[in-house]
């Protein structure tokens, strides 16, 4: 493994060469298998880059293409470099970190400053198109024409013509200029009433119509007064007019039927009339920090936020405490030497861990049912478990403990086995009681291994959406506030705020997510610091 090439990872002359990196033989020149693997992986990267680039090119997304090109170039540069650089080992992980951690966070933050959500998804142009298309109304005296779509000359590119048969049997040809009556001899009308052939026109097949679908959907044979004959599918047409039209000069939409004028409000992304009535179709706009200030200043949020935060912390901390105490206690019992049937007990103990938690929460919810639930029936109780704030919280913690202790039991069992029994024996010889030996010898050693697990358990349960949503949906709710329930976590509360009311509000949800992210980050930071100081003690 001695370096056989000049220059080693930028080491200055005279400095000792760094030790060879693990796995270096895979990329070393000379190993044919390693070279083959390298060629295959790089080829795959190139193929994937091409595969990703074509749709991006079709969409004209130059930024996307440059990102793909840049990443691919970086991969090739790094792995074709003859030097043995550590970035060869870091690159896959770094790319994954960027793709799955940093980009989602950046995307969440960028969403949080918009009003993205139902009614504000697309661009202003899309909203205008949708408003105009939705306002096409059938004229009061409209008749139903039988329709054949035809073209002059080339079916794929020739000028569109609607061949129409009125209910009285008269045939017309309609183009962008207007209607022309066809002489009875010029057109062949089928028994269904549609024109199948006409002099000078090519009747399009369904596939040909479909190919020109957008053009046909936008096509109208003008009949005067702003109205026109439009298609309703392949075989029928009607006379109608769009009552709403966009006017660029006033940046507004005028309704010709009612005379109402809806002016664009570019701050909210909606068209509103003077009375404050808005059109349903809006568009996405940047709203700055208003989603964040809304979280902070909305009185209905403020009133319940701290109560929920307190329960949220209590829930996560309570869960950690319960699963730790129960898991550790069981591990200690199982650790007793000479216990018979230990394997069978262990399997029984980790059983809840093997169950899908999704189904278990629903099952437990039914078991806590006040009238039909197993818990009340078995113990002869009459407790309204999920209907009272404190019993609902207790039930939730119990179930969460039931699902969570096996993991801590497994971890504690492993950690206990790594602590030499001699240490405890020595303490006992020195005169310590069983409790003292556990408290001052076993537990501190255990905590070194367990603290990171406890921190991650805390972080996981801090956002344990499934547990709360499937068991109680955040309830029970106080009569005066249907938005914040007794068992709501910040995440279930956010979910309700963002998706419970006016449909989906991704912008607002993203803002609250950023707050939760900050809270969890802060708590994790503090507790990890604590655990580091714990390690330093030993």
């Amino acid at each position, binding site marked *: 493994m001695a370096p056989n090439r000049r220059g080693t990872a930028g080491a200055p002359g005279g400095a000792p060469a760094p030790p060879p990196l693990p796995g270096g033989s895979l990329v070393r020149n000379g190993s044919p298998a390693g070279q083959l693997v390298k060629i295959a992986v790089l080829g795959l990267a190139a193929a994937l880059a091409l595969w990703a680039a074509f749709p991006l090119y079709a969409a004209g997304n130059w930024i996307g293409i440059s990102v793909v090109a840049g990443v691919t170039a970086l991969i090739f540069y790094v792995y074709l470099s003859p030097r043995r650089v550590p970035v060869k080992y870091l690159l896959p992980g770094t790319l994954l970190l960027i793709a799955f951690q940093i*980009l989602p966070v950046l995307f969440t933050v960028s969403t949080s400053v918009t009003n993205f959500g139902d009614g504000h998804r697309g661009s202003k142009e899309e909203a205008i198109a949708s408003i105009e298309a939705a306002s096409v109304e059938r004229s009061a005296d409209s008749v139903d024409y039988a329709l054949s779509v035809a073209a002059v000359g080339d079916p794929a590119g020739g000028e569109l013509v609607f061949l129409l048969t009125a209910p009285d049997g008269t045939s017309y040809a309609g183009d962008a200029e207007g209607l022309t009556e066809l002489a009875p001899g010029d057109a062949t009308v089928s028994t269904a009433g549609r024109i199948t052939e006409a002099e000078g026109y090519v009747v399009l097949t369904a596939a040909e119509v*479909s190919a020109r679908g*957008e053009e046909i959907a936008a096509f109208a044979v003008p009949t005067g007064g702003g109205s026109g004959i439009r298609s309703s599918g392949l075989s029928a047409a009607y006379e*109608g007019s769009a009552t709403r039209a966009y006017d660029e000069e006033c940046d507004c939409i005028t309704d010709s039927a009612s005379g109402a004028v809806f002016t664009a409000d570019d701050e909210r992304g909606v068209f509103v009339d003077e009375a404050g009535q808005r059109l*349903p179709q809006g568009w996405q706009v940047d709203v700055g920090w208003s989603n964040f200030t809304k979280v902070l200043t909305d009185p209905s949020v403020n009133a319940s936020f701290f109560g929920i935060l307190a329960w949220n912390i209590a829930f996560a901390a309570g869960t950690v405490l319960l699963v730790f105490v129960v898991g550790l206690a069981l591990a200690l019992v199982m650790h007793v030497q000479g216990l018979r049937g230990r394997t069978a007990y262990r399997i029984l103990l980790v059983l809840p861990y093997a169950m899908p938690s999704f189904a278990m929460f629903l099952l437990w919810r039914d078991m806590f049912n006040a009238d039909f639930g197993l818990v009340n029936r078995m113990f002869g109780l009459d407790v309204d478990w999920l209907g009272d704030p404190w019993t609902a919280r207790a039930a939730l913690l119990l179930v969460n403990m039931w699902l969570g202790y096996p993991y801590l039991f497994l971890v504690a069992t492993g950690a206990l086995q790594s602590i030499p029994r001699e240490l405890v024996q020595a303490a006992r010889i020195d005169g310590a009681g069983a409790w003292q030996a556990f408290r001052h010898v076993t537990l501190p050693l255990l905590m070194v291994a367990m603290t990171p697990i406890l921190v991650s358990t805390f972080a996981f349960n801090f956002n344990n959406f499934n547990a709360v949503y499937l068991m109680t949906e955040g309830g029970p709710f106080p009569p005066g506030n249907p938005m914040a329930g007794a068992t709501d976590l910040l995440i279930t509360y956010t979910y309700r705020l963002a998706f419970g009311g006016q*449909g989906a509000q991704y912008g607002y949800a993203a803002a609250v997510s950023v707050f939760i992210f900050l809270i969890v980050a802060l708590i994790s930071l503090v507790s990890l610091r604590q655990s580091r100081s714990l390690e330093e003690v030993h």
Partner: protein
Amino acid sequence: MKIRSASVFTGAAALTLLATACGGGDTGGETQAAAEDAMVIWADDERTDVLLPFAEEFGDAHGVEVEVQAVPNDELQSSFVTAHQAGSGPDIVVGAHDWTGNFVQNGAIDPIQLPQDTVEAFAPTAIEAVTYNDQLYGVPYAMENLVLIRNTDLAPEEPASVEEMVEAGTGLRDAGDVEEIMGLQVGQVGDPYHIHPFYTSAGGYLFGRDDNGDYDPTDLGVGTDESIAAFERIAELGEEGSGALKRSIDDQNVASLFNDGRTAYFVTGPWSLPDIRTAGIPYEISAVPGFEGGEEARPFVSVQTFYVAAGGANKVLAQEFVTNYVAKPELAVALYESDPRPPALTAALEQIGEDDPDLAKVVAAGENGDPLPAIPQMAAIWDPFGKAEASVIGGADPEETVTAAGETIADQIG
């Protein structure tokens, strides 16, 4: 913003592909090309199989390819809106009519122009349901509404009012014949759909109607004196009252209560009938009764609908399919056979009604029903209204609870 987020997405997608090294790069292009030519219909799993032969027939008749794709029903609405926005949506989507408002505000569907004689072939309530802002936005194919199903062994007489039903149910419970007075799902967070007949009978309403008969989002009925009075009557049936309505009865256990003979009355829809028949309970169907001296009990009527996507690649074909094909009685009958809800087409209903007498009873029970509001503001109702219902049934003060729910809803509607 759009460009930035798009590049973030594509960058992430490219990195994902590179990182996970998922193969099959060259087949991807081909399937995409095929999907662009074909007309695509999205429906839930149950309806997909039924639609397939009809889609094939339509495709053969017009020389085009038609694909029917199954999307789980609870994700259908949001998946469609998201896919439409991304430009990869279907041409036709099949779903409940109360999605209309949300689809329209997101510009995801196009209005549909039906000839007058086709409109008249449908039940008027069905047409009313799919009309939003004076525009027809979908073609209905089936309707459903709540009914009262009673166990004729235990309760041979049809109750004329809620009070009669509760009295008879209480008698049966006290005699030990049943466990519960009646089966109406409430749950810990309530169920606005199932309580609606009781709520309207006691005088409550959700949204007022404007001059055209459309729901008016500015006239919110929750939190008004009428709604408080209605919840006071519902509270009398609750846990502190007669005990007919309980939070412990929810969507999970209500059907087994009735199917095991543990209650004599069951407020539910036609979807429960297959299980009741399997359980062998002798039953009779009638309209959900109202309170004595109250107004009519009006259940929600919801309508299953075919929508034409605004962003579809085959809009003309899609229009053709829904305007000329969905109105065919054969399709309605086939859909009925896979899922026994009354067809919206009067002709299909008559055809099936001859063999299935229950169907006419379900339809009769829904005749005075309210179409489920399709306005986007309805989304703000469900959650707070349901919780108010659960609280009041659990014994909370109706005035305080309903006022708070009304304020929350008004806040969200903005």
